[in-house]
């Protein structure tokens, strides 16, 4: 049982809040090149942008809106909005952060619309999945997904951006439109709550 508990405890639950992830310079140049090409009107570059960014956008949308179908709508909406920007894309200095900001806003808009139409509960959303090479961990993924679903959507979003999108707290603040301190505070609260949920889950299963 101890091994099971250990396996369910994410290592990022013990991570210090002050640690900052530094983005790679090469990756940033790649983003800037793609945005410059899009600003020049090269439609074919959209494929490259999708391969580079779709996973991050989809994950952010999924963790924010809590529904796979809605997350797909957000991805489509984000890419349409990018395509509509045209030559203005050349002025974007931090393309990845800018794109995630657009994704965040689209997801927030969708959340508001969903609240109006009383969306279904999001308990079954697969926030985490097991690797294809290790399907035995599917139960762990389901358990953690259920616990993550119980986090507030803002805290869920910060956890994703911090630990699965390698964003700094400064970037998270820009993306979500809050001060850096607020982003770090949300992360701390999310980790604390997830840790409590894990301990409670361990007690009930044992």
């Amino acid at each position, binding site marked *: 049982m101890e091994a099971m508990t250990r396996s369910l405890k994410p290592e990022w639950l013990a991570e210090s809040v002050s640690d900052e992830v530094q983005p790679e310079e090469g990756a940033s140049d790649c983003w800037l090149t793609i945005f410059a090409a899009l600003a020049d009107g090269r439609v074919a570059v959209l494929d490259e942008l999708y391969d580079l960014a779709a996973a991050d956008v989809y994950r952010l949308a*999924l963790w924010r809106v809590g529904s796979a179908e809605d997350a797909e709508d957000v991805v489509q909406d984000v890419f349409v909005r990018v395509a509509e920007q*045209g030559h203005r894309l050349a002025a974007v200095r931090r393309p990845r952060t800018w794109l995630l900001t657009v994704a965040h806003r689209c997801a927030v808009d969708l959340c508001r619309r969903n609240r109006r139409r009383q969306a279904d509960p999001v308990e079954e959303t697969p926030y985490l999945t097991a690797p294809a090479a290790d399907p035995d961990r599917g139960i*762990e993924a389901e358990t953690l997904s259920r616990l993550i679903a119980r986090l507030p959507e803002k805290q869920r979003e910060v956890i994703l951006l911090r630990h699965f999108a390698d964003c700094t707290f400064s970037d998270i603040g820009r993306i979500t439109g809050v001060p850096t301190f607020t982003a770090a505070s949300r992360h701390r609260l999310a980790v604390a709550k997830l840790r409590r949920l894990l301990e409670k889950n361990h007690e009930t299963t044992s």
Partner: protein
Amino acid sequence: MKQPPDSVSDGLAPPVPPSALRDRTLQAARAAMTENGGDDIWSRLWKSRPIRLAWAASVAVLLFGHMVIGTGAPSGPPDTLRPVMAAAGLRDELAKVIDVERVTIELPAWEIRVSRDRVETEPPTTNEDQS
């Protein structure tokens, strides 16, 4: 026997987008880019039918207003008085009155009274006193 993994980051990760989403998204993005992407703001304004109608309506209103104001009575004295005023030099006088710079000094009432009393009580200076 397989050892349990140490943490989530060893394997668990958020899901990737479904493969069917790629074609759908790129198709919509290409259509949007072809339609709007290469245009500047003026081209997009020109292509928008509501904005074109609003522009035409504003021009019509301006023309109508210009015509109404242009046919109305002119400002100033009536035309019959203008030659008389010009002959009497009244126009120059009026211009001088308008050009006068008005200086307003706001003093409290008691200070005005004190300064007035001082003027009245001061003895007049004469050449004899100065010598």
